[in-house]
Protein backbone atom coordinates (compact mmCIF):
# COMPACT_ATOMS: atom_id res chain seq x y z
CA UNK A 1 0.00 0.00 0.00
CA UNK A 2 1.21 3.49 -0.72
CA UNK A 3 1.09 6.42 1.66
CA UNK A 4 -2.28 7.56 0.39
CA UNK A 5 -3.92 4.19 1.02
CA UNK A 6 -2.30 3.89 4.44
CA UNK A 7 -3.68 7.26 5.45
CA UNK A 8 -7.12 6.37 4.23
CA UNK A 9 -7.03 3.19 6.31
CA UNK A 10 -6.60 5.32 9.44
CA UNK A 11 -9.36 7.66 8.29
CA UNK A 12 -11.71 4.71 7.78
CA UNK A 13 -11.31 3.66 11.40
CA UNK A 14 -12.07 7.17 12.63
CA UNK A 15 -14.59 8.70 10.24
CA UNK A 16 -18.31 8.08 9.75
CA UNK A 17 -19.58 6.72 6.44
CA UNK A 18 -20.95 10.15 5.57
CA UNK A 19 -17.57 11.73 6.22
CA UNK A 20 -15.80 9.08 4.15
CA UNK A 21 -18.18 9.65 1.25
CA UNK A 22 -17.46 13.38 1.30
CA UNK A 23 -13.70 12.75 1.38
CA UNK A 24 -13.87 10.38 -1.57
CA UNK A 25 -15.81 12.77 -3.77
CA UNK A 26 -13.28 15.53 -3.03
CA UNK A 27 -10.09 13.47 -3.25
CA UNK A 28 -10.82 12.64 -6.88
CA UNK A 29 -11.60 16.21 -7.89
CA UNK A 30 -9.55 18.84 -9.69
CA UNK A 31 -6.64 20.65 -8.07
CA UNK A 32 -8.81 23.64 -7.38
CA UNK A 33 -11.65 21.67 -5.84
CA UNK A 34 -9.15 19.82 -3.65
CA UNK A 35 -7.73 23.17 -2.55
CA UNK A 36 -11.20 24.32 -1.56
CA UNK A 37 -11.88 20.99 0.15
CA UNK A 38 -8.73 21.42 2.23
CA UNK A 39 -10.02 24.81 3.40
CA UNK A 40 -13.61 23.65 3.97
CA UNK A 41 -12.73 20.37 5.72
CA UNK A 42 -13.98 21.34 9.23
CA UNK A 43 -17.40 22.07 7.72
CA UNK A 44 -17.76 18.40 6.88
CA UNK A 45 -15.34 16.55 9.16
CA UNK A 46 -15.44 16.40 12.96
CA UNK A 47 -12.60 17.42 15.23
CA UNK A 48 -12.55 14.23 17.26
CA UNK A 49 -9.13 12.99 18.38
CA UNK A 50 -7.66 10.36 16.04
CA UNK A 51 -7.48 6.86 17.41
CA UNK A 52 -4.59 4.97 15.80
CA UNK A 53 -1.37 3.17 16.70
CA UNK A 54 0.06 3.38 13.18
CA UNK A 55 3.16 5.43 12.46
CA UNK A 56 3.73 6.73 8.92
CA UNK A 57 6.99 8.42 7.93
CA UNK A 58 7.71 9.06 11.58
CA UNK A 59 4.30 10.59 12.36
CA UNK A 60 2.19 8.84 14.98
CA UNK A 61 -1.05 10.85 14.70
CA UNK A 62 -1.62 10.35 18.45
CA UNK A 63 -2.18 14.05 19.08
CA UNK A 64 -4.05 14.68 15.83
CA UNK A 65 -7.72 15.43 15.30
CA UNK A 66 -9.69 13.91 12.43
CA UNK A 67 -10.02 17.17 10.48
CA UNK A 68 -6.24 17.52 10.50
CA UNK A 69 -5.80 13.95 9.30
CA UNK A 70 -8.24 14.48 6.45
CA UNK A 71 -6.43 17.64 5.43
CA UNK A 72 -3.17 15.68 5.39
CA UNK A 73 -4.88 13.11 3.18
CA UNK A 74 -5.94 15.79 0.69
CA UNK A 75 -2.34 17.05 0.58
CA UNK A 76 -1.08 13.56 -0.18
CA UNK A 77 -3.74 13.17 -2.89
CA UNK A 78 -2.59 16.33 -4.71
CA UNK A 79 -1.43 15.56 -8.23
CA UNK A 80 2.35 15.97 -8.32
CA UNK A 81 2.95 14.99 -11.95
CA UNK A 82 3.79 18.62 -12.71
CA UNK A 83 5.99 19.56 -9.78
CA UNK A 84 5.81 23.30 -10.48
CA UNK A 85 2.03 23.36 -10.29
CA UNK A 86 2.16 21.11 -7.24
CA UNK A 87 4.48 23.51 -5.42
CA UNK A 88 2.43 26.53 -6.48
CA UNK A 89 -0.77 24.94 -5.18
CA UNK A 90 0.80 24.18 -1.83
CA UNK A 91 2.32 27.65 -1.58
CA UNK A 92 -1.13 29.17 -2.01
CA UNK A 93 -2.40 27.01 0.84
CA UNK A 94 0.51 28.05 3.05
CA UNK A 95 0.09 31.73 2.24
CA UNK A 96 -3.61 31.85 2.94
CA UNK A 97 -3.72 29.41 5.87
CA UNK A 98 -5.65 30.17 9.04
CA UNK A 99 -4.23 28.67 12.23
CA UNK A 100 -5.70 25.16 12.03
CA UNK A 101 -4.82 24.92 8.35
CA UNK A 102 -1.27 25.99 9.17
CA UNK A 103 -1.07 23.27 11.81
CA UNK A 104 -2.26 20.68 9.30
CA UNK A 105 0.27 21.84 6.70
CA UNK A 106 3.22 22.00 9.05
CA UNK A 107 2.56 18.70 10.76
CA UNK A 108 2.21 17.05 7.33
CA UNK A 109 5.52 18.33 5.93
CA UNK A 110 7.13 14.89 6.04
CA UNK A 111 4.28 13.51 3.94
CA UNK A 112 4.76 15.97 1.07
CA UNK A 113 6.70 15.51 -2.13
CA UNK A 114 10.02 17.36 -2.43
CA UNK A 115 10.41 17.73 1.35
CA UNK A 116 13.43 20.03 0.93
CA UNK A 117 11.35 22.67 -0.84
CA UNK A 118 9.39 23.30 2.36
CA UNK A 119 12.36 24.25 4.49
CA UNK A 120 11.45 27.95 4.64
CA UNK A 121 7.88 27.08 5.63
CA UNK A 122 9.25 24.91 8.41
CA UNK A 123 11.65 27.52 9.75
CA UNK A 124 8.88 30.15 9.51
CA UNK A 125 6.83 27.89 11.77
CA UNK A 126 9.70 28.04 14.26
CA UNK A 127 9.67 31.84 13.96
CA UNK A 128 5.95 32.16 14.63
CA UNK A 129 4.58 33.22 17.99
CA UNK A 130 1.34 31.34 17.39
CA UNK A 131 1.63 28.50 19.90
CA UNK A 132 -0.18 25.79 17.97
CA UNK A 133 1.76 26.42 14.77
CA UNK A 134 5.10 26.36 16.56
CA UNK A 135 4.08 23.14 18.32
CA UNK A 136 3.23 21.58 14.97
CA UNK A 137 6.83 21.82 13.77
CA UNK A 138 8.42 21.22 17.18
CA UNK A 139 6.62 18.18 18.53
CA UNK A 140 5.87 14.71 17.17
CA UNK A 141 7.13 15.85 13.80
CA UNK A 142 10.12 14.18 12.10
CA UNK A 143 10.74 17.03 9.65
CA UNK A 144 13.12 19.14 11.75
CA UNK A 145 15.51 16.36 12.73
CA UNK A 146 15.76 15.20 9.11
CA UNK A 147 16.00 18.44 7.18
CA UNK A 148 17.07 21.26 9.52
CA UNK A 149 20.60 22.64 9.42
CA UNK A 150 22.37 22.74 12.76
CA UNK A 151 21.59 26.44 13.04
CA UNK A 152 17.86 25.91 12.43
CA UNK A 153 17.78 22.90 14.72
CA UNK A 154 19.39 24.84 17.53
CA UNK A 155 16.92 27.70 17.08
CA UNK A 156 14.05 25.25 17.45
CA UNK A 157 15.42 23.69 20.62
CA UNK A 158 16.41 27.03 22.15
CA UNK A 159 13.02 28.56 21.46
CA UNK A 160 11.36 25.60 23.18
CA UNK A 161 13.56 26.09 26.21
CA UNK A 162 12.99 29.83 26.11
CA UNK A 163 9.22 29.36 26.12
CA UNK A 164 9.15 26.60 28.74
CA UNK A 165 7.93 24.06 26.23
CA UNK A 166 8.54 20.31 26.65
CA UNK A 167 11.76 19.63 24.70
CA UNK A 168 11.49 15.87 25.21
CA UNK A 169 8.64 15.89 22.67
CA UNK A 170 11.02 17.05 19.95
CA UNK A 171 11.79 14.10 17.70
CA UNK A 172 15.52 13.43 17.52
CA UNK A 173 16.37 15.50 20.59
CA UNK A 174 19.03 13.05 21.74
CA UNK A 175 20.32 12.47 18.21
CA UNK A 176 21.36 16.03 17.42
CA UNK A 177 23.02 17.56 20.48
CA UNK A 178 25.99 19.77 19.57
CA UNK A 179 28.60 22.03 21.07
CA UNK A 180 27.01 25.26 19.79
CA UNK A 181 23.68 24.35 21.35
CA UNK A 182 25.34 23.54 24.68
CA UNK A 183 27.06 26.94 24.71
CA UNK A 184 23.80 28.70 23.83
CA UNK A 185 21.98 26.95 26.66
CA UNK A 186 24.70 27.99 29.08
CA UNK A 187 24.47 31.58 27.86
CA UNK A 188 20.69 31.56 28.14
CA UNK A 189 20.99 30.33 31.71
CA UNK A 190 23.41 33.17 32.53
CA UNK A 191 20.97 35.74 31.17
CA UNK A 192 18.11 34.23 33.10
CA UNK A 193 20.08 34.03 36.32
CA UNK A 194 21.11 37.66 35.97
CA UNK A 195 17.41 38.54 35.76
CA UNK A 196 16.51 36.40 38.73
CA UNK A 197 14.86 33.78 36.51
CA UNK A 198 15.57 30.15 35.63
CA UNK A 199 15.56 27.70 32.72
CA UNK A 200 13.73 24.34 32.77
CA UNK A 201 16.03 21.80 34.48
CA UNK A 202 15.78 19.18 31.71
CA UNK A 203 17.42 21.60 29.27
CA UNK A 204 20.76 20.71 30.86
CA UNK A 205 20.60 17.21 29.38
CA UNK A 206 21.80 18.80 26.14
CA UNK A 207 25.13 19.94 27.61
CA UNK A 208 26.08 16.45 28.87
CA UNK A 209 28.46 15.56 26.03
CA UNK A 210 29.96 19.02 25.85
CA UNK A 211 30.94 19.68 29.42
CA UNK A 212 34.09 21.70 29.83
CA UNK A 213 35.48 23.77 32.63
CA UNK A 214 33.23 26.73 31.75
CA UNK A 215 29.96 24.84 31.62
CA UNK A 216 30.95 22.89 34.71
CA UNK A 217 30.69 26.18 36.60
CA UNK A 218 27.00 26.26 35.64
CA UNK A 219 26.60 22.71 36.91
CA UNK A 220 28.17 23.70 40.22
CA UNK A 221 25.67 26.47 40.43
CA UNK A 222 22.84 23.99 39.87
CA UNK A 223 24.18 21.77 42.66
CA UNK A 224 24.03 24.81 44.93
CA UNK A 225 20.49 25.68 43.87
CA UNK A 226 17.60 25.50 46.31
CA UNK A 227 15.48 23.86 43.61
CA UNK A 228 15.50 20.05 43.88
CA UNK A 229 15.05 19.65 40.13
CA UNK A 230 18.05 21.84 39.35
CA UNK A 231 20.13 19.71 41.73
CA UNK A 232 18.90 16.52 40.12
CA UNK A 233 19.68 17.93 36.67
CA UNK A 234 23.24 18.66 37.82
CA UNK A 235 23.62 15.11 39.10
CA UNK A 236 22.23 13.59 35.89
CA UNK A 237 24.58 15.65 33.72
CA UNK A 238 27.57 14.55 35.78
CA UNK A 239 26.43 10.93 35.89
CA UNK A 240 26.13 10.71 32.10
CA UNK A 241 29.14 12.84 31.19
CA UNK A 242 32.59 11.59 30.19
CA UNK A 243 34.22 14.78 31.43
CA UNK A 244 36.55 13.69 34.28
CA UNK A 245 35.97 16.71 36.49
CA UNK A 246 32.24 15.98 36.38
CA UNK A 247 32.72 12.73 38.25
CA UNK A 248 34.74 14.37 40.97
CA UNK A 249 32.06 17.04 41.25
CA UNK A 250 29.30 14.45 41.58
CA UNK A 251 30.93 12.56 44.46
CA UNK A 252 30.90 15.77 46.47
CA UNK A 253 27.11 15.37 46.59
CA UNK A 254 26.61 11.86 47.88
CA UNK A 255 22.86 12.03 48.33
CA UNK A 256 22.28 13.33 44.82
CA UNK A 257 24.73 10.79 43.43
CA UNK A 258 22.59 8.06 45.02
CA UNK A 259 19.36 9.60 43.83
CA UNK A 260 20.57 9.97 40.26
CA UNK A 261 21.61 6.34 40.08
CA UNK A 262 17.97 5.27 39.98
CA UNK A 263 16.67 8.12 37.84
CA UNK A 264 16.88 9.28 34.25
CA UNK A 265 15.95 12.54 32.49
CA UNK A 266 12.39 11.30 32.26
CA UNK A 267 12.05 12.34 35.90
CA UNK A 268 12.40 15.94 34.75
CA UNK A 269 10.29 15.73 31.59
CA UNK A 270 7.47 18.17 32.14
Amino acid at each position, binding site marked *: MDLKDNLFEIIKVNASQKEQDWIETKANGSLQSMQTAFVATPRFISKTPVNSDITLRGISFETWTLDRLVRAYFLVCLDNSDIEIYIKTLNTLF*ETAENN*EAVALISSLALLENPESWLLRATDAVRTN*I*GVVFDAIAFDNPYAKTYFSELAWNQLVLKCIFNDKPIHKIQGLDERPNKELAISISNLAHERWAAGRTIPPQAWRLVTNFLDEIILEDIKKLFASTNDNDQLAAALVCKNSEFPLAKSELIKHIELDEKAKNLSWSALEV
Partner: protein
Amino acid sequence: MCQKESEIKQNPSHFEGTAEELEMSKTIQANYMDYVKGMKFFDPHIHMTSRTTDDYTALVDAGVVAIIEPAFWLGQPRTGLASFKDYYSSLVGWERFRSSQFGIKHYCTIGLNSREANNEALAEEVMEILPLFLYKEGVVGVGEIGFDDQTAAEEKYYRQQLEMSKEAGLPVQVHTPHRDKKKGTELSMSIALEHAIDPGMVIIDHNNEETVESVLDKGFWAAFTIYPFTKMGNERMVELVKKYGPERIMINSAADWGISDPLAVPKTAALMKIRGISDEAIKMVCYQNAIDAFAQSGQINVADFETPQVIDQSLKFNGNTVLRGGQIPRVDKNSIFIS
Protein backbone atom coordinates in the same frame (compact mmCIF):
# COMPACT_ATOMS: atom_id res chain seq x y z
CA MET B 1 -23.71 65.47 30.39
CA CYS B 2 -22.49 64.78 33.92
CA GLN B 3 -23.78 61.61 35.48
CA LYS B 4 -22.00 61.48 38.82
CA GLU B 5 -22.78 63.50 41.87
CA SER B 6 -19.14 64.24 42.54
CA GLU B 7 -18.82 65.77 39.10
CA ILE B 8 -21.97 67.77 39.58
CA LYS B 9 -20.57 69.32 42.69
CA GLN B 10 -17.44 70.31 40.84
CA ASN B 11 -19.24 71.60 37.78
CA PRO B 12 -22.74 72.54 38.87
CA SER B 13 -23.42 74.87 35.98
CA HIS B 14 -22.74 72.14 33.42
CA PHE B 15 -25.57 69.94 34.59
CA GLU B 16 -28.70 70.72 32.70
CA GLY B 17 -30.50 67.38 32.72
CA THR B 18 -34.05 66.59 33.68
CA ALA B 19 -35.17 66.17 37.28
CA GLU B 20 -35.27 62.42 36.68
CA GLU B 21 -31.68 62.42 35.45
CA LEU B 22 -30.56 64.52 38.36
CA GLU B 23 -32.14 62.03 40.73
CA MET B 24 -30.52 59.13 38.93
CA SER B 25 -27.14 60.78 38.94
CA LYS B 26 -27.24 60.77 42.71
CA THR B 27 -27.85 57.06 42.93
CA ILE B 28 -25.52 55.75 40.22
CA GLN B 29 -22.66 53.82 41.69
CA ALA B 30 -19.19 54.98 40.84
CA ASN B 31 -18.50 51.82 38.85
CA TYR B 32 -20.97 51.25 36.02
CA MET B 33 -19.73 47.67 35.74
CA ASP B 34 -21.60 46.83 38.92
CA TYR B 35 -24.79 46.99 36.88
CA VAL B 36 -23.76 44.32 34.41
CA LYS B 37 -21.91 41.92 36.70
CA GLY B 38 -22.25 38.36 35.47
CA MET B 39 -23.61 39.37 32.07
CA LYS B 40 -21.95 38.05 28.91
CA PHE B 41 -21.46 40.22 25.85
CA PHE B 42 -20.85 39.63 22.16
CA ASP B 43 -19.43 42.52 20.14
CA PRO B 44 -20.22 41.75 16.49
CA HIS B 45 -18.09 44.56 15.07
CA ILE B 46 -14.70 45.50 16.47
CA HIS B 47 -11.35 45.96 14.67
CA MET B 48 -8.94 44.40 17.13
CA THR B 49 -5.93 44.60 14.80
CA SER B 50 -6.01 48.32 15.60
CA ARG B 51 -6.24 47.83 19.36
CA THR B 52 -3.81 46.99 22.16
CA THR B 53 -3.61 44.14 24.64
CA ASP B 54 -4.91 46.58 27.27
CA ASP B 55 -8.15 46.61 25.31
CA TYR B 56 -8.31 42.81 25.25
CA THR B 57 -7.88 42.75 29.02
CA ALA B 58 -10.57 45.39 29.44
CA LEU B 59 -12.95 43.40 27.22
CA VAL B 60 -12.44 40.25 29.29
CA ASP B 61 -12.97 42.15 32.52
CA ALA B 62 -16.18 43.66 31.19
CA GLY B 63 -17.64 40.27 30.24
CA VAL B 64 -17.10 40.30 26.46
CA VAL B 65 -16.69 36.62 25.56
CA ALA B 66 -16.73 36.71 21.77
CA ILE B 67 -16.20 39.22 18.99
CA ILE B 68 -16.47 39.58 15.23
CA GLU B 69 -13.76 41.47 13.40
CA PRO B 70 -14.98 42.60 9.98
CA ALA B 71 -12.45 43.14 7.23
CA PHE B 72 -12.21 46.87 6.65
CA TRP B 73 -10.01 49.58 5.29
CA LEU B 74 -6.80 50.38 7.08
CA GLY B 75 -7.09 54.16 6.96
CA GLN B 76 -5.14 54.35 3.72
CA PRO B 77 -5.56 52.46 0.47
CA ARG B 78 -3.68 49.22 -0.10
CA THR B 79 -1.52 49.20 -3.21
CA GLY B 80 -1.43 45.53 -4.09
CA LEU B 81 -3.13 42.18 -3.81
CA ALA B 82 -0.55 40.81 -1.40
CA SER B 83 -1.56 43.42 1.19
CA PHE B 84 -5.13 42.20 1.03
CA LYS B 85 -4.03 38.58 1.26
CA ASP B 86 -1.86 39.27 4.29
CA TYR B 87 -4.62 41.26 5.96
CA TYR B 88 -7.23 38.54 5.50
CA SER B 89 -4.68 35.96 6.67
CA SER B 90 -4.00 37.99 9.79
CA LEU B 91 -7.71 38.03 10.65
CA VAL B 92 -7.89 34.24 10.66
CA GLY B 93 -4.33 33.83 11.92
CA TRP B 94 -2.42 36.13 14.19
CA GLU B 95 -5.36 38.18 15.46
CA ARG B 96 -7.40 35.06 16.16
CA PHE B 97 -4.48 33.71 18.17
CA ARG B 98 -3.92 36.99 20.00
CA SER B 99 -7.56 37.04 21.01
CA SER B 100 -7.47 33.42 22.16
CA GLN B 101 -4.71 34.34 24.57
CA PHE B 102 -7.28 36.36 26.47
CA GLY B 103 -9.92 33.65 26.27
CA ILE B 104 -12.01 35.70 23.82
CA LYS B 105 -13.46 33.80 20.87
CA HIS B 106 -12.58 35.66 17.70
CA TYR B 107 -14.63 35.41 14.50
CA CYS B 108 -14.35 37.54 11.42
CA THR B 109 -16.17 38.56 8.28
CA ILE B 110 -14.25 38.77 5.02
CA GLY B 111 -14.92 41.17 2.20
CA LEU B 112 -13.74 44.05 0.07
CA ASN B 113 -14.69 47.32 1.77
CA SER B 114 -16.52 49.97 -0.18
CA ARG B 115 -13.74 52.56 -0.32
CA GLU B 116 -11.24 50.22 -1.90
CA ALA B 117 -13.86 48.90 -4.31
CA ASN B 118 -13.14 52.12 -6.19
CA ASN B 119 -9.72 50.85 -7.29
CA GLU B 120 -11.22 48.56 -9.90
CA ALA B 121 -8.05 46.92 -11.17
CA LEU B 122 -7.15 45.83 -7.65
CA ALA B 123 -10.75 45.02 -6.76
CA GLU B 124 -10.86 42.49 -9.61
CA GLU B 125 -7.86 40.69 -8.18
CA VAL B 126 -9.35 40.72 -4.69
CA MET B 127 -12.57 39.13 -5.97
CA GLU B 128 -10.50 36.20 -7.20
CA ILE B 129 -8.97 35.39 -3.82
CA LEU B 130 -12.05 36.06 -1.65
CA PRO B 131 -13.51 32.54 -2.00
CA LEU B 132 -10.29 31.11 -0.54
CA PHE B 133 -11.01 32.98 2.66
CA LEU B 134 -14.80 32.85 2.83
CA TYR B 135 -14.84 29.10 3.48
CA LYS B 136 -12.41 29.20 6.37
CA GLU B 137 -13.26 28.19 9.89
CA GLY B 138 -14.66 31.01 11.97
CA VAL B 139 -15.55 33.19 8.99
CA VAL B 140 -19.13 34.10 9.89
CA GLY B 141 -20.05 36.38 7.03
CA VAL B 142 -19.17 38.53 4.05
CA GLY B 143 -18.31 41.95 5.38
CA GLU B 144 -18.10 44.74 5.85
CA ILE B 145 -19.30 45.58 2.37
CA GLY B 146 -21.65 48.19 0.94
CA PHE B 147 -21.48 51.84 0.02
CA ASP B 148 -19.26 54.75 0.94
CA ASP B 149 -19.37 57.39 -1.83
CA GLN B 150 -22.13 55.40 -3.55
CA THR B 151 -20.24 55.08 -6.83
CA ALA B 152 -20.83 52.65 -9.68
CA ALA B 153 -17.71 50.66 -8.75
CA GLU B 154 -18.92 50.31 -5.16
CA GLU B 155 -22.21 48.98 -6.44
CA LYS B 156 -20.54 46.54 -8.81
CA TYR B 157 -18.46 44.86 -6.09
CA TYR B 158 -21.26 44.99 -3.55
CA ARG B 159 -23.38 42.98 -5.98
CA GLN B 160 -20.57 40.51 -6.71
CA GLN B 161 -20.00 39.92 -3.03
CA LEU B 162 -23.71 39.44 -2.37
CA GLU B 163 -23.61 36.62 -4.92
CA MET B 164 -20.59 35.12 -3.16
CA SER B 165 -22.44 35.20 0.16
CA LYS B 166 -25.32 33.29 -1.41
CA GLU B 167 -22.97 30.72 -2.87
CA ALA B 168 -21.22 30.22 0.48
CA GLY B 169 -24.39 30.36 2.59
CA LEU B 170 -22.96 33.20 4.66
CA PRO B 171 -24.66 36.19 6.30
CA VAL B 172 -23.76 39.67 4.99
CA GLN B 173 -22.56 42.54 7.17
CA VAL B 174 -23.42 45.78 5.41
CA HIS B 175 -21.58 49.02 6.11
CA THR B 176 -23.80 52.05 5.54
CA PRO B 177 -22.24 55.35 4.48
CA HIS B 178 -21.47 58.32 6.71
CA ARG B 179 -22.73 60.78 4.11
CA ASP B 180 -26.19 60.48 2.65
CA LYS B 181 -26.81 57.58 4.99
CA LYS B 182 -30.52 57.20 4.47
CA LYS B 183 -30.25 56.91 0.71
CA GLY B 184 -27.26 54.56 0.97
CA THR B 185 -29.08 52.31 3.42
CA GLU B 186 -32.17 52.08 1.23
CA LEU B 187 -30.03 51.34 -1.82
CA SER B 188 -28.09 48.61 0.02
CA MET B 189 -31.31 46.91 1.05
CA SER B 190 -33.02 47.13 -2.31
CA ILE B 191 -29.99 45.66 -4.09
CA ALA B 192 -29.83 42.78 -1.58
CA LEU B 193 -33.50 42.04 -2.19
CA GLU B 194 -32.95 42.28 -5.94
CA HIS B 195 -30.35 39.51 -5.58
CA ALA B 196 -32.99 37.40 -3.81
CA ILE B 197 -31.09 37.43 -0.55
CA ASP B 198 -33.15 36.64 2.53
CA PRO B 199 -33.18 39.83 4.64
CA GLY B 200 -32.77 37.57 7.67
CA MET B 201 -29.25 36.88 6.37
CA VAL B 202 -28.30 40.55 6.19
CA ILE B 203 -27.10 42.75 9.05
CA ILE B 204 -27.42 46.42 8.19
CA ASP B 205 -24.81 48.22 10.28
CA HIS B 206 -24.33 51.76 11.63
CA ASN B 207 -28.05 52.55 11.85
CA ASN B 208 -29.48 55.64 13.47
CA GLU B 209 -32.89 57.09 14.32
CA GLU B 210 -33.48 57.90 10.66
CA THR B 211 -32.80 54.47 9.19
CA VAL B 212 -33.91 51.95 11.78
CA GLU B 213 -37.59 51.80 11.06
CA SER B 214 -37.23 50.95 7.40
CA VAL B 215 -34.55 48.34 8.14
CA LEU B 216 -36.72 46.55 10.69
CA ASP B 217 -39.85 46.82 8.56
CA LYS B 218 -38.12 45.10 5.66
CA GLY B 219 -37.01 42.20 7.86
CA PHE B 220 -33.26 42.96 8.05
CA TRP B 221 -31.18 42.90 11.24
CA ALA B 222 -30.46 46.41 12.53
CA ALA B 223 -27.02 46.92 14.07
CA PHE B 224 -26.05 50.11 15.86
CA THR B 225 -22.53 51.32 16.34
CA ILE B 226 -21.93 53.12 19.61
CA TYR B 227 -19.05 55.36 18.64
CA PRO B 228 -18.26 58.78 20.04
CA PHE B 229 -18.96 61.91 17.97
CA THR B 230 -19.64 60.39 14.55
CA LYS B 231 -22.14 57.59 15.12
CA MET B 232 -24.59 56.68 17.91
CA GLY B 233 -24.30 57.77 21.52
CA ASN B 234 -25.51 55.22 24.03
CA GLU B 235 -28.17 57.43 25.60
CA ARG B 236 -29.83 57.68 22.20
CA MET B 237 -29.45 53.92 21.89
CA VAL B 238 -31.33 53.32 25.11
CA GLU B 239 -34.20 55.41 23.81
CA LEU B 240 -34.26 53.42 20.56
CA VAL B 241 -34.49 50.11 22.41
CA LYS B 242 -37.31 51.54 24.50
CA LYS B 243 -39.10 52.58 21.35
CA TYR B 244 -38.53 49.58 19.07
CA GLY B 245 -37.95 46.77 21.55
CA PRO B 246 -35.06 44.28 21.35
CA GLU B 247 -36.13 42.19 18.34
CA ARG B 248 -33.50 42.02 15.54
CA ILE B 249 -31.54 44.89 17.11
CA MET B 250 -27.89 44.53 18.09
CA ILE B 251 -25.16 46.94 19.16
CA ASN B 252 -21.43 47.04 18.55
CA SER B 253 -18.44 49.27 19.21
CA ALA B 254 -16.80 49.26 15.75
CA ALA B 255 -13.73 50.25 17.77
CA ASP B 256 -10.81 50.82 15.40
CA TRP B 257 -7.87 53.19 14.90
CA GLY B 258 -10.08 56.22 15.51
CA ILE B 259 -11.19 57.62 18.86
CA SER B 260 -13.57 54.84 19.77
CA ASP B 261 -14.52 52.77 22.79
CA PRO B 262 -14.04 48.98 22.83
CA LEU B 263 -16.28 48.82 25.90
CA ALA B 264 -19.24 50.38 24.09
CA VAL B 265 -21.33 47.20 24.38
CA PRO B 266 -20.98 46.61 28.14
CA LYS B 267 -21.25 50.34 28.87
CA THR B 268 -24.47 50.59 26.89
CA ALA B 269 -25.78 47.47 28.63
CA ALA B 270 -25.13 49.14 31.98
CA LEU B 271 -26.94 52.26 30.86
CA MET B 272 -29.90 50.20 29.66
CA LYS B 273 -30.01 48.45 33.02
CA ILE B 274 -29.90 51.77 34.86
CA ARG B 275 -32.70 53.13 32.69
CA GLY B 276 -34.96 50.21 33.43
CA ILE B 277 -34.65 47.98 30.37
CA SER B 278 -35.15 44.30 31.28
CA ASP B 279 -32.26 41.88 31.58
CA GLU B 280 -33.84 39.75 28.88
CA ALA B 281 -33.93 42.66 26.42
CA ILE B 282 -30.36 43.64 27.29
CA LYS B 283 -29.23 40.10 26.61
CA MET B 284 -30.89 40.11 23.19
CA VAL B 285 -29.40 43.43 22.13
CA CYS B 286 -25.92 42.90 23.55
CA TYR B 287 -25.43 39.18 23.00
CA GLN B 288 -28.08 36.86 21.62
CA ASN B 289 -29.26 38.63 18.48
CA ALA B 290 -25.75 38.93 17.11
CA ILE B 291 -25.17 35.24 17.74
CA ASP B 292 -28.47 34.27 16.11
CA ALA B 293 -27.73 36.39 13.06
CA PHE B 294 -24.15 35.27 12.47
CA ALA B 295 -24.57 31.66 13.61
CA GLN B 296 -26.49 31.18 10.36
CA SER B 297 -22.99 30.74 8.92
CA GLY B 298 -22.73 27.43 10.79
CA GLN B 299 -19.42 28.69 12.18
CA ILE B 300 -20.41 29.69 15.72
CA ASN B 301 -20.45 27.08 18.44
CA VAL B 302 -21.64 28.87 21.57
CA ALA B 303 -20.04 26.20 23.74
CA ASP B 304 -16.69 27.70 22.70
CA PHE B 305 -17.36 30.82 24.75
CA GLU B 306 -20.20 29.90 27.10
CA THR B 307 -18.19 27.14 28.72
CA PRO B 308 -14.64 28.37 28.23
CA GLN B 309 -13.01 25.20 29.57
CA VAL B 310 -14.31 23.37 26.50
CA ILE B 311 -11.73 24.70 24.12
CA ASP B 312 -11.21 23.62 20.54
CA GLN B 313 -9.84 20.06 20.51
CA SER B 314 -7.16 21.00 18.07
CA LEU B 315 -5.93 23.75 20.37
CA LYS B 316 -5.80 21.61 23.47
CA PHE B 317 -2.37 20.17 23.06
CA ASN B 318 0.71 21.18 24.97
CA GLY B 319 2.25 24.57 25.03
CA ASN B 320 -0.87 26.63 24.94
CA THR B 321 0.45 29.28 27.12
CA VAL B 322 -2.24 31.58 28.21
CA LEU B 323 -5.43 29.63 28.66
CA ARG B 324 -3.61 27.34 31.06
CA GLY B 325 -5.56 27.39 34.30
CA GLY B 326 -7.77 30.16 32.93
CA GLN B 327 -5.19 32.71 33.96
CA ILE B 328 -4.45 35.75 31.86
CA PRO B 329 -1.06 37.27 32.57
CA ARG B 330 -1.63 40.68 33.99
CA VAL B 331 0.46 43.77 34.26
CA ASP B 332 -0.10 45.78 37.41
CA LYS B 333 -0.66 49.18 35.85
CA ASN B 334 -0.11 51.01 39.11
CA SER B 335 3.27 49.51 39.77
CA ILE B 336 6.35 51.47 38.79
CA PHE B 337 8.23 48.16 38.55
CA ILE B 338 8.16 46.17 35.32
CA SER B 339 9.30 42.62 35.87
